[in-house]
């Protein structure tokens, strides 16, 4: 799949924003940051909303006809994209109400829940597509949620350190979230390495003989080849995986667990930036590694 920058920015920054608001909402319920004041909560929450908004605005950039974007609320019953749009828009008044209520515990629970719901809806847009086996599996929503939560936790660590309401529990949680995200991503990389799904034989209905493409029928690129025919060299994919894991997970974990000196604001800031950079590479891979079955009609033997 063609990795469109607008969609990568959307899923990464909005994911981090929802993750941050999830932890922030929980910080009121659990004893994550008991010392946080309402003002500090709103400042931190505002940062989360800004991240979410940047993401959502970016998502509209890949629309070819954005004037009809408001219509995306119309098919809530069947479309994950519609559900994502509805929940993403409902999230704003909910968070504002939560701010106004001074972090009411019921609303905190609702904000945390809603943040996860939006993350799952975003992931299901991709995971529901039977045409792309690298997406059409349960690890896709798991990855999206865990990566969003890891990024949110790292940013929360940084914010609470700056605000002076930091507790070691936040750090422990961040380390656990990053480790869980790294584990689920490694599982995903291993999972999609297993060959499965349609082949050129089932695509054409000739399953008892070899099939090969003689002529694709078009002289230059089409919508289909541009959108789905994106190909990256295997070596580049492997390098990107190494970069995503080392930059996104290993180095932030080292920074936060004190392997590179006792963690402070600088460590937390560096960890957040590297984690986000790593997730950007991971999200690029998510698209670059996805192979649509229509490529079988363009001569690929399998996806």
């Amino acid at each position: 799949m063609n990795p469109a920058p607008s969609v990568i920015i959307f899923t990464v920054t909005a994911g981090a924003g929802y993750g941050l608001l999830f932890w922030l909402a929980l910080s009121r319920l659990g004893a994550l940051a008991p010392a946080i004041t309402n003002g500090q909560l709103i400042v931190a929450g505002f940062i989360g909303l800004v991240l979410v908004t940047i993401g959502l605005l970016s998502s509209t950039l890949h629309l070819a006809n954005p004037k009809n974007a408001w219509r995306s609320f119309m098919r809530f019953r069947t479309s994950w994209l519609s559900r994502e749009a509805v929940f993403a828009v409902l999230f704003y008044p909910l968070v504002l109400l939560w701010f106004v209520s001074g972090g009411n515990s019921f609303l905190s629970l609702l904000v945390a829940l809603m943040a996860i719901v939006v993350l799952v809806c975003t992931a299901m847009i991709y995971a529901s597509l039977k045409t792309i086996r690298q997406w059409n599996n349960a690890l896709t929503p798991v990855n999206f949620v865990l990566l969003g939560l890891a990024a949110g936790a790292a940013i929360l660590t940084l914010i609470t350190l700056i605000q002076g309401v930091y507790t070691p529990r936040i750090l422990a949680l961040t380390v656990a979230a990053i480790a869980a995200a790294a584990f689920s991503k490694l599982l995903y990389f291993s999972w999609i390495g297993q060959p499965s799904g349609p082949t050129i034989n089932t695509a054409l209905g000739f399953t008892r003989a070899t099939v090969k493409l003689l002529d694709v029928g078009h002289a230059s690129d089409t919508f289909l080849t541009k959108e789905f025919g994106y190909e990256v060299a295997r070596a580049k994919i492997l390098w990107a995986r190494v970069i995503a894991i080392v930059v996104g997970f290993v180095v932030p974990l080292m920074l936060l667990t004190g392997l590179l000196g006792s963690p402070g604001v600088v460590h937390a800031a560096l960890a957040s930036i590297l984690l986000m950079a790593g997730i950007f590479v991971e999200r690029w891979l998510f698209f670059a590694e996805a192979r649509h079955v229509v490529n079988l009609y363009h001569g690929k033997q399998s996806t």
Partner: protein
Amino acid sequence: MKLGLVIDLDTCVGCHACALACKQWNTSGTTGPLSDYEPYGKEPSGVWFNRIRHFEVDEYPHNKTVNTPMSCMHCDDAACVTVCPTGASYKREEDGIVLVDQSKCMGCNLCAWACPYGARELDQEQGVMKKCTLCVDRIYDMNLPKEDRQPACVLTCPTSARFFGDFDDPDSQVSTLVRERGGYAMMPEVGYNPVNKYLPPRERPAAPVADKSADTSTGTLQEKTQSLLGKWLKKQKAAFDSLGER
């Protein structure tokens, strides 16, 4: 009604006439234009509802060229419709045709991602998704003679490899063809239940090859000629004799 196409892979010669007829009809029809990008440039591209690919099945000496015209399959379980967030994509209750309401489409491409058959293409000029309409603006046009109320691709096919009809009617031409020729769906494992069906190439014996070493004909050229001449003379005599009878 469940309208759709049957495409005979045995007789299709891969001439792309169906794709051209489709482009011609639809670019000037209700879904038009089907925009072209740099049509006279180095890399001409554009929107097509029908694309033909050419494959080789099996290995020499059993190999065969198979041409596969592909357009929207008007699936029974059309995921392009369910993933659409705006309601622009819909499947008609009355005849099963899958259509795009271009005034509602926001151009998010998700339906094209959901389609395994590459049937949907975004018109970059207009910013909306376009697809085969089964010539819905033609098949119901009562101003046309009955035999012309068929999709443009079906009417134009020079080898009559394309058939249009109602799959809900067990006695329709398309249903009969599927039943008798083992019509099948492409990539059924995705689970969309495509309506359009393909007829596999027929089993036939290998084409006869002249074997020069074992020529069994015994007569000389002169004998053959005489007999031909004799036949011709007989025919002329019979014609002459019958003149008086009229």
